[in-house]
Structure formats: structure tokens, C-alpha cells
């Protein structure tokens, strides 16, 4: 290749490149707004994400597009969703976000699913200035993380808040003389379960409780009967499990089989899933769990009806509503700013109060203190019994057998 052909080819190449960028520019100026999302559709967290996260993304987009799209300064724009499966793998997740930012050039990204993923991906969201309204992320490092990442928001509370919510329930029952001061506690040997158990140990002991059984089990343990038998052998009135979905189901089933006769039975993630109620029916009356909602407000009723109508299934009684509320926050902030200006949207979220299905939400140091921590199955509905700044908590009832 001589110099001249090289030159002409380079020129041709550059022209094509320029044309291409012009094309992509026109694409950007089209009448859609591109929103990306990365969450698990396969892998260990998929079962949870397909209950609490994906249906809400679908619902929200359908609703926004039905009314014509997001109202921006240069007209209404429908949402175009770019979705990737992170396969419950943090590396895949970060790659997908990178792709959304640099290749798909999406305007906004919906926050990840799961505590670990929200923390692991925070640097890359921050790098491209995407506001990240984390929902399914419960950690005690909220202060530290929000300081480091100025576009990161938390909405579901901290580990300590969750443990203290349950502690308050237990202390109240103990002071009323309804339960003894002995607790059987187990946790899944995974970041989530270990962190909760580590916070719970000193918290329960400081409140005058004695942990008479305190064990962990590996994720995916096929037979949980030794654990339930072990707990049954103690004289604890309370059983607390910092558990994940498969073991939440497994521990409850074993408790039914062993007739674990406790007055307080608590399992963590998935207790709020409709599938949990579906599986156990009336047996789980008065089971306590993480999360909760107040299903009686008109906003929540409208949301639950719409969710079933659009996605064909019921939302859970915890993070579903929070997830939808986080999308409402994003929507309001984008419309208020009126253009694709991510920094302005982040600033707007920091300084305003948002009307959501969970009631008014505002952020203090990028953290919302409006969430449920403990819920209880009562009459086929998982109702919130302890909250942070939300009304409508119902009284806790004692578990009375597993009829």
C-alpha cells in the first residue's frame, strides 16, 4: 500500500466515521429516552429479582409509555429500555453497565438488585454520573458509601435498623411477659446472613436476651432438619433466621414438620413473597419476616391492582413497593429537570421530596429513612409491624402452632 492509497483510505474511513457519528447524533435526538437496567435473570439471585425487581421495571415503563412518555422540555419522550442479565455475577454486571454507558449510551440506569451488586457497581455508576437509587440494598455502610459516591441513594434501611426493628418486637413481647429471654438464631453463611447475625448478637444480648442456639449453615443446604431439631431441643420461645429465599422456604417447612413450638418465628428474605403465602397457606399465620407494607392505603391498593393487571402476578409485601417508588422518584426528577442532565437529576433527588406509593420520600445525606423493617403474616397478608417513619403498623401477634 503506497502513501497515496493510505491517505485516501484514511480520508474515506474518517468520512464514514463522521457520518456514523452524525447518524448516532440524530438517533440521540430522536423522540425516545433510553433507560438501561442490569439485574439477574439467571443465577442465585434471579428468583428474587424476578419477584421484586423486573416486574416493577416492566410496570413502570408500560405506565409511563401509556401516558405518552416522560415530559421533557423538548416534548414527551417514550422510554426505550435496554436490559441485560448480569447472571448474578458482579463482573458481568460491571461489564454490562460499562456497555450501557459507552456503547448503548443510555440516558439513565435503574439501580442493581441485591446489596452486594449495588455496592460493587457503585463506582461505575459514579464514574458515569448515573444517579443510582439503590433499593434492595441493606447495609451498615450507608454513610461511608454515600460520602464516597455522590450519586448513590439508599431507600431500604440499614442492617442495624433491621435488627433493631426485630429487637423492639422481641423486647416488647418479653416485657409483657409473653416470651422468655431465650432466642434460637441461625443464619445463612453468606455476606448478608453473616452481617445480620454479627449485628444481631450484641444487639439481642444488650437487650437482655440469651442466644441458646446460634449456628450458621451454608447457602444451598439441602437438609435443614438438623438445624430445626437443634433449635427445638432448646427452650427458646423465639426462632430467628437470617435466611435467603430457598432456606426461608426450607426452614419454615421443617418447622411445620418438626412442629417447632415457638411463639416468635422469624425468617428474613422471601417471607414477604406471595409464593411463601401460596406454599404454606394458613400454616404461616403470625410468622414474622423482613420487610412489610401497609396494604391499606389507596396508593398501595392501586399499585397492587395495577401490578397484577400488567405483570400477571402479585407484588411482594416488601421491596416491590420500594422498587416501584424508586422509579417514581427517578421519573419525577427527570421530568422536573426536563432534560437528560444526570448531574442535575442527582441534585434534584438530593433536595426534593417525592410523592410515591410509599408516601412522601426525601433523602437526608442520600438516605431515605422511610421503610418497613419487620412484617407479619396476618390473615393471608404480610403486614408491616415495625417501620421507620411510616404509619399503619399493626400489633404483633404470637405464633400459635402450625395448624
Amino acid at each position: 500500500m503506497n502513501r497515496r492509497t493510505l491517505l485516501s483510505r484514511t480520508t474515506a474511513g474518517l468520512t464514514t466515521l463522521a457520518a456514523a457519528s452524525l447518524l448516532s447524533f440524530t438517533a440521540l435526538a430522536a423522540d425516545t429516552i433510553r433507560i438501561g437496567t442490569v439485574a439477574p435473570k439467571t443465577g442465585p439471585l434471579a428468583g428474587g429479582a424476578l419477584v421484586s425487581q423486573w416486574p416493577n421495571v416492566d410496570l413502570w415503563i408500560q405506565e409511563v409509555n401509556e401516558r405518552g412518555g416522560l415530559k421533557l422540555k423538548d416534548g414527551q419522550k417514550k422510554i426505550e429500555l435496554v436490559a441485560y442479565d448480569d447472571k448474578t455475577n458482579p463482573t458481568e454486571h460491571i461489564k454490562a453497565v460499562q456497555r450501557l454507558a459507552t456503547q448503548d449510551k443510555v440516558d439513565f440506569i435503574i439501580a442493581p438488585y441485591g446489596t452486594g451488586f449495588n455496592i460493587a457497581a457503585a463506582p461505575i455508576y459514579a464514574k458515569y454520573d448515573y444517579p443510582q437509587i439503590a433499593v434492595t440494598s441493606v447495609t451498615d455502610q450507608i454513610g461511608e458509601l454515600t460520602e464516597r459516591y455522590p450519586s448513590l441513594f439508599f431507600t431500604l434501611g440499614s442492617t442495624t435498623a433491621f435488627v433493631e426493628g426485630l429487637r423492639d418486637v422481641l423486647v416488647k413481647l418479653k416485657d409483657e411477659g409473653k416470651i422468655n429471654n431465650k432466642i434460637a438464631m441461625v443464619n445463612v453463611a453468606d455476606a448478608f446472613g453473616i452481617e445480620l447475625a454479627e449485628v444481631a448478637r450484641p444487639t439481642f444480648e444488650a437487650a437482655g436476651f440469651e442466644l441458646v442456639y446460634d449456628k450458621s449453615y451454608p447457602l444451598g443446604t439441602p437438609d435443614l432438619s438438623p438445624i430445626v431439631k437443634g433449635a427445638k431441643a432448646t427452650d427458646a420461645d423465639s426462632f430467628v433466621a437470617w435466611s435467603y429465599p430457598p432456606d426461608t422456604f426450607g426452614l419454615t417447612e421443617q418447622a411445620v414438620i418438626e412442629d417447632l413450638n415457638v411463639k416468635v418465628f422469624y425468617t428474613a428474605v422471601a417471607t414477604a413473597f406471595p409464593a411463601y403465602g401460596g406454599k404454606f397457606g394458613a400454616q404461616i399465620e403470625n410468622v414474622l419476616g423482613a420487610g412489610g407494607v401497609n396494604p391499606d392505603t389507596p396508593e398501595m391498593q392501586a399499585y397492587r391492582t395495577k401490578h397484577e393487571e400488567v405483570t400477571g402476578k402479585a407484588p411482594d409485601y416488601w421491596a416491590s413497593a420500594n422498587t416501584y417508588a424508586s422509579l417514581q422518584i427517578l421519573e419525577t426528577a427527570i421530568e422536573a429537570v426536563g432534560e437528560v442532565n444526570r448531574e442535575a437529576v442527582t441534585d434534584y433527588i438530593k433536595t426534593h421530596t417525592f410523592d410515591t406509593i410509599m408516601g412522601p420520600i426525601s433523602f437526608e445525606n442520600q438516605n431515605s429513612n422511610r421503610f418497613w423493617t419487620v412484617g407479619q403474616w396476618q390473615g393471608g397478608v404480610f403486614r408491616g409491624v415495625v417501620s421507620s417513619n411510616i404509619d399503619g403498623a399493626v400489633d404483633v401477634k404470637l405464633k400459635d402452632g402450625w395448624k
Partner: protein
Amino acid sequence: MDILISGLLLGGTYALVAMGLNLQYGVARIMNLANGETLVLGALAAFLAFTAISLSPLVTMLVVAPLSFAANWVAYRLLLRPLVKRAKSPGQLEVDSILATFGISFALVGLMVSIHGEYYTYSFLARPIEILGTTVAENRLVAALVAAGIGAALVGWLNFTRTGTAVRAVSVDRQAAQLVGINVARVSALAFALGGAVTATGGTLISTFITLDGSMGVIFTMKALIIVIMGGVGDLRGSIIAAIVLGLVETAVASLIDPGLTLVSAYVIFLGILLFRPQGLFGKRNA
């Protein structure tokens, strides 16, 4: 007593997971990484049939087994047979079949997630039953009994029938089997299909007491692999015994020491067997 009975039941579960893979790997020489997915497919069928038309998983099982047999037969003939044909050495077939079935496992996960991405959870025979003073779940007992039935039937078939003997012959030496007039291709396909049927049946039973989802297959593949290697590749008795040992040890450790150490104990036994008897409990040492 508690430990013995719970351990035996868990061992039964593990046997359900491992017997199919043993047939596929031991006889057909296909290291089937989609084994776990086959199991989860069986579970999905049980879940769908139960939630849609309240069909008992025990009935579903009878439908799933022949379906899985047919599907695995077709999969072997269409997808894996070409690999067997072109393989110049057993090592190459192993690598090729691992890659091929790894791919198949992804396809199956995608399929299952698109059908039902959430947890397969329902309640079937979740009732207590007393055995010798120990409370166990009926669904686990049923699964263990069926596992014992399948195991006994397979061992009997392998040892006392003509076809069974042919299957064992192929597992010992393919070339020699061919020399004495055994249709190795046919027997391999049969073993592979039968293995798939056993695994899927196991899935329908396991789904009655373990909550599964579409992407959980790999956990079962790993467990099956450990058991098959511990028991000795190609020997069904070895797999059954290894499964029971694993069940007993895990239950004993969980009850007496700490539930957190069950995985550790399983791997310690695995390591011990690899160190001192690398061919597995019943495996034959290579000449």
C-alpha cells in the same frame, strides 16, 4: 437414631442426584454438565403440573421419566453421537462432551427461566411422620423410598439381564464389547437416555422438599460429580453407597458439630478418597 434416619433420607436424595450421571458418564462416557439442568427440568414439570392442575408429583414422575428418556435419547443421537464418532481418544471425547453439555446447560437454563423464572415452590406431603421415634417429612421419605426402588431396580437390571450385562461390558471396555458383538452405540444411547430419565425423576421428587429455581442446576451437577467420582465411575453401587455416606456424614456433622461445617465435611471425605483411593470406592484401578 435421629442422625441415622435423617442421614439415610438425605443419602437417598443424593443417590437420586447421582445415579443418572453415573450411567451417562460411566457407560456413555459423556461428562454431562447439563445433568443438574435435567434434574431441574423434572422439578419444573412437577411444579407446573402441581400448580396448574394439582397433579401429584408422583404422577408427574411417571410422565417425566419416559419423556426425559426420549429427549435424552434424541439429544445423544443428534448432539453427542457426532462427538463420539470424531473423538480420537477418550480424553478428547471428555473435553468435547464437557464443552457441548456445558452449552446445552445454558440453553436449558434459558428455557426454564423463560418458562418460570421464580422459585418452584409448592407444598406436597409436607407432613410429619414418625419412624422409630424420629420425626421426618413424608415427602423426603417418599423420595428416599423411590430412590431405593430405582437403585435396586437398576442394580438388578445391570447384573441379571442381558442388556444390563451389555451395559456393564461397555462401561468396562468399549472395544472389547464391540468385539463380542455388542452394539456399543446403541447401548451408550440407552445408558445416556436412562441416566437422563433417572435424573429427571429425581428432580420431580426433590422439588417436593427443596425449593429450586431455573438456574440452580449447577449445584446438583457438582454434587452428582462428587458422588460419582467418590463411588467410582461406572459403578452404580459405588454411587449409591457414596451418596449414603455423604448423607450420613453431613447430617452427623450438622447435628453434632455445626451445620456450618457440612460442606467442609463433604469435601474432606472427597479429598480423602481422591488421595487414598483415586479410582473411587468401587472403581477399578487402571492397568
